[in-house]
């Protein structure tokens, strides 16, 4: 047994405990605890508000039980794993308790708007003051034991257990969505059994957790065998399964709006627009490596161009059909991509970012300005944008508008994939990795950048066109930087250069907040956190493309002194094995 090592292990646990306190107090002070309180996870037992704070403490405690890199070979002894977890969790909880005392003693709410009694009450587990603070310590102890115990579980049990807990949270959070779907399917009874006042009922939670646990255990115990069997199948049989899955997927996509009703179709439509923009920006950022922060400019140009061309009350008053307007909008898009792109493409990464940001702002201000009011209607926007006409379908209905959006998304994905796997995609890859060498290898950098920019512009403009149609009108106010940031965030969350990534990113960052209204308040905070955390922790995104994964992890072990100057030397001799 190495005492200094053990000391370090516990010091680290204590530090993580403090971090847990800071995190929990932060979550409370920014109001999440109180704001999320009304939403139940397990109705009557656990609310989302308390869960967020508790989760912070639990996660840090769990981290504390992880043996540090310097530990060497073999896991630390059991009692110390438990000990570290308990230490971290108790410190975390004690810190929160201390904060409660402070909040009682000082008029914190004069400065911090959320430091009110309600928050204290929730953090204090709903108990009166001294009792709540004391109960916190007990809860900390329990958390510590739980964290340590979880760590000590064999991975094949740990995984399913975590999955079950996460599933309960997710299924509960999806309540608004699930309720509508069940309603649509006429399954009110099921809905009533599982859900009650916005959260899972206790039997519901048990069933969900049990089901996931069972599946997870089956998978971790038997999954390998099943996978092997699939792998051993003859090629044509495997292909058959693939085709079957594919067909099921298509059918699912086609019947989706009928399944989920008009409101969720509306949400899915919005997500679709962001997927379309994500695909476009993905070409610019993910493939060509140009950080464009003014992507909203194209969204806005598309929306306004469509509105001006199709609305009978616009300055032109042409009232063109959407289908006639769309090719014109695409042309305008490509041109605007060229015109905006041409001057800025000689700029380096960060300068490009800030200039495009500036251009996005310029476009927004111009659309709003009195100077262009005769064309854009100023703040009053352009009204009466008609939906597309096709047979007798009313495309103002989100369940119907879903199809053209889906068609364009599929088309967009198709274009993006085709290009990525062609000479063009290779040229973009090369250009992103090393512009000079790419030029010296025969790639016309300017043209390829412009191509990326213009294609991105076309995607953005089509999304804008659908926005105008979806709203039936267009106003300048929401065509701001935050659209660009949203699109950027979803690409980064999903994984730059990855098309499945874009889709997942859009559902998580655009779809979820539409359903979980409590999150609306924290949407941008969360986007910011997503950008930071992803860059620090997983720069290649959740569903990375193979290429980017290689790239963004590139410099990891290329240690340079000024990147690792602080702290004690981490290279410990790896010969000591902590004995029992």
């Amino acid at each position, binding site marked *: 047994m190495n005492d200094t090592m053990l000391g370090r292990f516990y010091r680290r646990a204590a530090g993580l405990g403090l971090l847990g306190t800071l995190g929990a107090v932060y979550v409370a002070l920014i109001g999440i605890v109180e704001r999320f309180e009304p939403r139940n996870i397990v109705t009557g037992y656990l609310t989302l508000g308390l869960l967020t704070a508790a989760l912070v403490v639990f996660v840090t405690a769990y981290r504390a039980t992880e043996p540090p890199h310097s530990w060497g070979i073999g896991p630390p002894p059991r009692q110390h794993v438990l000990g570290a977890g308990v230490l971290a969790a108790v410190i975390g909880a004690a810190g929160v308790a201390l904060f409660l005392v402070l909040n009682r003693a000082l008029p914190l709410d004069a400065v911090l708007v959320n430091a009110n009694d309600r928050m204290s009450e929730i953090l204090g587990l709903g108990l009166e003051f001294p009792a709540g603070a004391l109960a916190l310590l007990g809860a900390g102890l329990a958390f510590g034991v739980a964290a340590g115990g979880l760590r000590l579980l064999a991975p094949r049990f740990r995984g399913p257990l975590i999955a079950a807990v996460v599933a309960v949270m997710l299924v509960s959070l999806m309540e608004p969505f699930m309720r509508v779907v069940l309603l649509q399917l006429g399954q009110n009874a099921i809905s009533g059994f599982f859900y009650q006042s916005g959260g899972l009922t206790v039997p519901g939670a048990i069933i969900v957790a049990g089901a996931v646990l069972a599946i997870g255990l089956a998978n971790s115990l038997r999954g390998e065998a099943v996978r092997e069997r699939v792998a051993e199948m003859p090629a044509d049989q495997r292909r058959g399964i693939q085709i079957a899955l594919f067909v099921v997927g298509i059918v699912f996509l086609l019947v989706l709006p009928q399944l989920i009703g008009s409101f969720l179709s509306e949400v899915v439509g919005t997500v679709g627009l962001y997927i379309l923009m994500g695909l476009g920006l993905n070409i610019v950022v993910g493939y060509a490596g140009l950080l464009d922060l003014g992507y909203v400019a194209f969204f806005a140009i598309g929306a306004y161009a469509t509105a001006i061309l199709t609305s009978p009350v616009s300055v032109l008053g042409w009232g063109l059909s959407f289908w006639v307007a769309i090719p014109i909008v695409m042309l305008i898009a490509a041109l605007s991509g060229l015109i905006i792109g041409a001057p800025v493409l000689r700029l380096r990464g960060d300068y490009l970012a800030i200039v495009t940001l500036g251009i996005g702002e310029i476009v927004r201000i111009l659309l*709003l300005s009195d100077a262009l009011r005769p064309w854009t209607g100023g703040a009053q926007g352009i009204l009466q944008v008609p939906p597309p006409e096709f047979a007798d379908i009313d495309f103002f209905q989100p369940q119907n508008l879903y199809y053209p959006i889906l068609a364009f998304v599929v088309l967009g994905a198709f274009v993006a994939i085709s290009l990525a796997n062609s000479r063009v995609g290779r040229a973009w890859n090369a250009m992103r990795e090393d512009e000079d060498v790419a030029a010296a290898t025969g790639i016309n950098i300017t043209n390829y950048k412009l191509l990326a920019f213009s294609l991105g512009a076309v995607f953005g403009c089509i999304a804008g066109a659908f926005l105008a149609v979806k709203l039936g009108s267009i106003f300048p106010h929401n065509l701001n930087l935050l659209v660009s940031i949203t699109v950027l965030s979803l690409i980064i969350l999903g994984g730059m250069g990855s098309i499945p990534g874009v889709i997942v990113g859009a559902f998580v960052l655009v779809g979820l907040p539409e359903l979980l209204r409590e999150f609306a308040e924290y949407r941008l905070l969360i986007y910011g956190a997503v950008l930071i955390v992803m860059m620090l922790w997983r720069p290649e995104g959740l569903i990375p493309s193979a290429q980017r994964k290689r790239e*963004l992890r590139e410099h990891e072990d290329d240690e340079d002194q000024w990147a690792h100057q602080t702290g004690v030397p981490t290279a410990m001799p790896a010969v000591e094995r902590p004995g029992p």
Partner: protein
Amino acid sequence: MRLRLPERLSFVDLILWGLRVAIVVFVLVGSYATLSQGVLGFDGWRTLLIVGVAQGSIYALIALGYTLVYGVLFMINFAHGEVFMAGVFTAFFAATALADSGILNGNPLFGLAIIFAVSMVTSMVVAVILERVAYRPLRRAPRLVPLITAIGASLFLQYTFRSLYGSGVRSYPTIEILTGTFDIAGVPIQKTQVVVIVSAILLMVGLYFFVQRTRTGRAMRAVSEDKDVAAMMGINVDRVISTTFAIGGLLAGAAGILYVFLFNSVSFSMGFLPGIKAFTAAVLGGIGNIVGAMLGGLFLGVLESIGPFLFLDGLGVPSTNQLRDVVAFTLLVLVLIFRPYGILGRKE
């Protein structure tokens, strides 16, 4: 045989030349038209100039933070505008408390010193934490990565402070000694404007001497030129980078209070636009260049103040003031396209 290929004047060049010509013509014609209409008298233009210089001094102070950080890390600290906001937003509570207890107007110098201290220290702490948490782990990462982190940090800070302090616009208590005007050479100028300009200049000169004359300043310059070699000289590069962020934060905190002298109101989103503008100023003067940042800030302030009216009013454009940011951002775009190393910067 000498054969020049026709591709030499590319499409891009054409657009760039078109842009240059268009802007020059626009500015000249617009200015001529405005001046010939003579709507604004000499006093009017002078007022605009003073307003511009005061606003510009604040841009300049914030710009120094961008320039310092760019100097050592070669990255744009996108979140610097939020560092500025954090300090002055926090100091609001100190100022209100001081005003309520009567200290602010009873003993104004003491009160102001506390307000400045709170603001500067808060900004400094935020800047240092920002560097430690969000940038330091990414120093070896590809360029795009810390840039995206910086954008994330900007959003995160903005909305953290919104959630902590509330989303409303708060107004600082009145500081009586700063109300009224000074007569300078027969011209009445707002006291606040004078104080802002003078303090900004003092701070900038102070920074200049700090960087040029002190040991830490030299270390910063060394790190800026060559990190590896600086480390070989025995400089703790990490500490110097932290110091640089700290100084940038201190200046931003001070700029925040000066901003309040002029505009009296704070909110969570107040840092974003001044931040971008200050970045523009830094680029304008040649990023990484301290004197450049000062001049760039002043120039941008004056241009923003005078430009929209001067260039546009004569052309019959309505609501020229609304297009102020358009003028500022257009300047940013133009500078970066045609002279990316800035007006005082050197070509790398």
